[in-house]
Each structure stands twice: as structure tokens, then as C-alpha cells.
């Protein structure tokens, strides 16, 4: 599925967070290693979330969730609304308490510590700036609570405001600022306390698209400069992919996948992740031959294609999903010997790409996204134009078929 050469050993980095062993999860331990190698220098775990369970009105919002957050990383909790990501964040901040499980910062148990005594600070979704205080007083609030000397407060607040480029706005009230400026005050207010972890609850959701992009870059810069661990909550997969070191995909209080943005996008652990992160074509495949050491032959739309052997066990005759991102689809001329025949039913000009929907003869819809060719600026399709659809072998990703009920399986290889 990737255009880039893929080393097979990377594939197992899509991790299982659900450990069954009560003592020590040897399998999970070894599976974690490749990720650390990939992430560069070894990082220590800062925040341990173990076995967290929470019910609201009989509905499980978090289901024995385990997660280790590393020191200095930018980790994103991604999922649809109601997946438990906000509850998880509020638990770290101390506004919610788990029914079961523990939260620990290093060796210090925080599970029952009230929010005011936790060395974690939050940037709230709608900023929650105190409307009756000036920008300066908002940022100074946390330091005043620490009873810092006046001079130190002044200096640190000014530094924090300079960091978010709001030095000249310290006398203003929040309502006199634009959305983006309020956002920055909220960030300055939280980081001025030099927290161990900064929790960000959908902080960009109230901003318009352009400002969001700017703030995304700015947040990344801040995180690099401060070296603070960022835990970021969003339902926007694009945002998650572009900002994070690691992404946690959540659904129904369970971790679906934990990995780098690239792993999550290119090697989704299950159908949910594949559907939620980006657009995907699911082609039905059937295993024809699985004798070879590391390749199998799969029948897709009557084509016999040779694929790399997946991580899950395959047997001849088994059905599986062949996943292809729209940008991995090749649209060929109808006369080409390769590919499956179909016709263009929709075309969307997107500026840098031409997105089209192609109906195959068996009724399957295929999304294709092609870059414009510099040699052919007028490149386009007619509606109803007959074409053939293909892809380069090795760019696909295979997943086993799942029952439609939510799967307990979290990782590709669990």
C-alpha cells in the first residue's frame, strides 16, 4: 500500500495494547521494541495509564484501557465522538475518576490526586479563559496559585506571552482578542506553569481551516521548543496524522491501534482504523495459493495478483480485504491489458489532484485520486468514459474479514 519500500519487520509495530498476562507481557514487550527503534533515541515512559475503566449510566466509556505515554512525545488520541478520548484526557487532568485502574506519573500515583495538585495542565476546547481577567492575569493565575514572587510571575508571564507572540496584548480582556489569539493565551496560560504534560482537548476545533493549519505548525514548534509531552485530543484524522509522533485510535473505549501516523495510515490494524483514517477502497479478495515463503496469490476481480504474505495466517480459499488508498489506484486506458474494466461516473477537480469515482462492471465503486501530469495539463475524464483500474503490486494492504460487531482484536498481529 505504500509507495515506499517497506521492511517487513516494521509491520509488527502496530501494537496491541491489550495485555492478558497479569504479570508481564513478554510478547507485548518484544513487540514494542521495533517501535522504539523507529522512534529514534529510546524514550522513557512518563505517564502510565493502566487498566482504566469508566462507566457513565451503565455505558462503558473506557474498557480496561492501557496506555504508556513517553516523555517528550506528541501523542494524539483520535476517534469519533463518544469513543472515550475526552474522558481519558479529563481523567489525566483529574476531572474524572476511573471506576477501576490507575494513573501514575513516573512512580507517583495520581489516580486520586485532585486536579490542582497534578503537574499536568490543560488547554480547553473553548479555551475557558477567565472573562473578567486581562490576558496577563489569565496567564499569571496559575503562578499566583503557586504563590510565586511578583517579579518572577511578571517575568515568566512575559516570557510565555512572547513565546506565543502576544507580548503587546497583555492588558486586553479575552473578548477583545480573535479566536486564534485566545487560543494562544490558553496555551500560554497552561505552559507557563511548566507542566510535565500538556493536555489539549480539541484545541483547534473552534478555529477556521486556515488558522487551524497555522496553529498546527505553531503547536508543533512549541512542543519542540519546550520539550513537554503533549497529549492531544482530536476527531480530525488529518490533524492527528500531521502533528503527532504517535496516534492512538480509539473506538468504544478500546484502543484500535497505536502507532506512528504512517503506520496508522499505511498499515491500519483493522477495518475501523482503515475506514476512519483517510479514504480507502476495500476490494474483496480470495486466497488462491499460499505455499510460497513470503508471497501469496489472491484473486481480486478475477485478476490473479501476487501479494506479500500478511501477518495474519492465511489458508487457501480464505476471503480477505484488499485495501488501496485512492492515490494508489492507477487509472488506465480501456485498451490496456492490465486491470479491471469500469467507467467513470464522477470526477472532481481538486486543484492538485483529479479525484474520480469509477464503477466497475460488478458494481463496485472505486475512488481514485491522481496527480496532474505536467506533460498533460488538460488531463481529464468524460463522465461515462470507459477505463481500466489497476494498482502497483506491493502498495496494497491486506486485512482479514471481520464480523461486523466491534472487534476485541486491537492489533494486526495480536
Amino acid at each position, binding site marked *: 500500500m505504500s509507495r515506499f519500500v517497506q521492511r517487513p519487520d516494521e509491520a509488527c509495530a502496530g501494537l496491541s495494547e491489550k495485555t492478558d498476562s497479569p504479570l508481564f507481557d513478554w510478547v507485548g514487550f518484544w513487540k514494542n521494541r521495533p517501535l522504539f527503534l523507529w522512534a529514534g533515541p529510546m524514550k522513557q515512559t512518563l505517564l502510565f495509564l493502566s487498566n482504566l475503566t469508566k462507566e457513565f449510566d451503565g455505558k462503558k466509556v473506557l474498557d480496561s484501557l492501557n496506555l504508556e505515554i513517553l516523555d517528550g512525545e506528541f501523542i494524539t488520541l483520535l476517534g469519533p465522538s463518544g469513543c472515550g478520548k475526552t474522558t481519558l484526557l479529563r481523567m489525566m*487532568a*483529574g*476531572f474524572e475518576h476511573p471506576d477501576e485502574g490507575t494513573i501514575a506519573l513516573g512512580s507517583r500515583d495520581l489516580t486520586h490526586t*485532585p*486536579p*490542582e*495538585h497534578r503537574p499536568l*495542565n*490543560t488547554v*480547553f*476546547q*473553548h479555551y*475557558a*479563559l*477567565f*472573562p*473578567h481577567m486581562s490576558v496577563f492575569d489569565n496567564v499569571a*493565575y*496559575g503562578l499566583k*496559585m*503557586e504563590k510565586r514572587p511578583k517579579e518572577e510571575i511578571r517575568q515568566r508571564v512575559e516570557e510565555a506571552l512572547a513565546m506565543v507572540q502576544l507580548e503587546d496584548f497583555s492588558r486586553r*480582556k479575552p*473578548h477583545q482578542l480573535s479566536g486564534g489569539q485566545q487560543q494562544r493565551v490558553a496555551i500560554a*496560560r*497552561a505552559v507557563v*506553569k511548566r507542566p510535565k504534560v500538556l493536555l489539549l482537548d480539541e484545541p483547534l476545533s473552534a478555529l477556521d481551516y486556515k488558522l487551524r493549519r497555522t496553529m498546527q505548525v505553531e503547536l508543533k514548534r512549541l512542543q519542540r521548543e519546550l520539550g513537554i509531552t503533549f497529549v492531544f485530543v482530536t476527531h480530525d484524522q488529518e490533524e492527528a496524522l500531521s502533528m503527532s509522533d504517535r496516534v492512538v485510535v480509539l473506538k468504544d473505549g478500546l484502543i484500535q491501534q497505536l502507532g506512528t501516523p504512517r503506520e496508522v495510515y499505511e498499515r491500519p490494524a483493522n477495518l475501523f482504523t482503515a475506514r476512519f483514517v483517510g479514504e480507502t477502497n476495500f476490494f474483496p479478495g480470495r486466497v488462491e495459493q499460499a505455499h510460497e515463503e513470503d508471497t501469496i496469490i489472491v484473486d481480486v476481480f478475477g485478476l490473479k495478483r501476487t501479494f506479500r504474505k500478511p501477518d495474519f495466517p492465511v489458508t487457501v480459499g480464505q476471503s480477505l480485504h484488499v485495501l488501496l488508498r485512492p492515490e494508489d489506484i492507477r487509472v488506465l486506458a480501456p485498451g490496456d491489458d492490465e486491470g479491471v474494466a469500469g467507467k467513470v461516473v464522477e470526477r472532481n477537480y481538486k486543484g492538485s489532484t483529479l479525484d474520480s469515482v469509477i464503477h466497475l462492471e460488478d458494481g463496485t465503486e472505486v475512488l481514485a485520486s491522481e496527480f496532474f501530469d505536467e506533460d498533460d495539463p488538460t488531463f481529464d475524464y468524460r463522465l461515462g468514459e470507459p477505463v481500466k483500474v489497476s494498482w502497483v503490486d506491493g502498495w496494497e494492504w491486506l486485512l482479514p474479514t471481520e464480523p461486523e460487531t466491534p472487534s476485541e482484536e486491537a492489533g494486526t498481529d495480536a
Partner: protein
Amino acid sequence: MSRWLPRTYLTLIYLLLYVPIVVLVVFSFNDSRTGYEWGGLSLRWYDALFNNRAMVQAMWNSLWLALSAATVSTLIGALTALALHRYRFRGKNVLNGMLFVVMMSPEIVLAISLLALFLLVGFQLGYVSLLLAHVTFCLPFVVITVMARLSGFDERLPEAARDLGANDFTMTRTVLIPVIMPALLAGWLLGFTLSLDDVVVSTFVSGPSYEILPLRIYSMVRVGLKPEVNALGTLLLVFSLVMLMLSQWILLRSKR
């Protein structure tokens, strides 16, 4: 046509609303004794007013009653509003309903019920009975004002304060109270005015030991014309205007 017709209509009604007030103010400076004809400029009615010791005493009594009734009802009302906003408890709807009924019931119904209570339990009618009665009819107005403010209150603000290291008490002092301050002020002012203006309830629950201004005015205006009332009315008008402006100014300042 469609633009000036509504405007003319609005102007006309506003004129009608303000004519009696203008008449009152102008005639308070009238030197004539009969009260219907213009007899030249004079401050004699103001003079008469301030030389009337019973009247001045009634003014102070009223002022003190209004101050205390407004303060007590703001305190209880604010706490009630917080409880209604915050807690789930049995009988919450009943409490809400009772406050609403108190607000809507004709004053006279409240008045006789309180009179019956005070007389049956042998309560001396005077300052305390007035205070209890006034707080009772001011209470729903304060509750509703504070509730309205709380319903627009960002639930994340207290959390943000806690997150930044404030404990409950500090959070209440530095965030909650300042944010609902305009509502407390508005509720207090409403209570103050309601109390100062009340005739109906006070008629029933006041005793000879504590004469208040509206009742004094009432006994004066029931028969004939008393030019001092013009002067008194003008003073009251100026007083409430000053209070209104002051509150607007404070509200605007708190927004800035």
C-alpha cells in the same frame, strides 16, 4: 411609509409614558398652592419635605429596609440559584415551581397570607416582618437573574481554575463570584427597587413602630393633592435614575 409609521407610533407611546413624569417634575418646582396652575418657580415643596421629620424618618426607614431586603434576598437567592444549577436533589422541581408561583402570584395574595402567618404566631409587625415579607417577594427575581447568568456560564472555567492549581475556595473567590457578579448586582438592584416601591405587601405587614415611605405617600395621596408628593416623586425618580446609571456603568466596566 413602512418605516415612519412604526417610528411615529413608538414616539407617541413614549410621549404618553413620559408626560405624567414630566408633569410631576415640573410641578415639583411650582410655587402655587392649588397644584393645578403654574405659580412660578419655587423650592418650597422640597423645603417642606425636608422639614417634615416624620417624612424624613420614613425615608431613612425605607432606605434601610430596601438595603437590607435586597442584600438578604441576594445572598439567599444566589445560593439557591447555585444549588438549583449544581445539584440534583429531590423536590428540585417543586422548589423551582414554588419560586415561580411566588413570582407570578398577585402581591395581595402573598400579603394576606403573610399577615395571617404573622398574626397567628403572634409576631410583632414592624421592621422584621417587613424584612421577611420583602425578602420573600424579591427572592424569585434574584434567583431567576442569577440562574440566567449561570446558564450561560462556561462549565470549563472552574475546571480551568482547578487545573491551574486553585482549590475550591480559591476558585469560588477568584472565578465563580467575579463571573456572576453582574447578575448579583442586577439581582440586588432589582430587589432594592421592588422593596422601595412596594405598597401592597407593606400595607399589610407593617406596624406603627416602623413607618416606611410608600405607606406615608399612600396616606398622603388618597385624598386631595399634596404638592410635597411632587417633590418627593422627583427625588425618588432622580435617585432611581442614578442607581440605574451606576449599575449600567458597573456592568459596562466589568465587561471591558
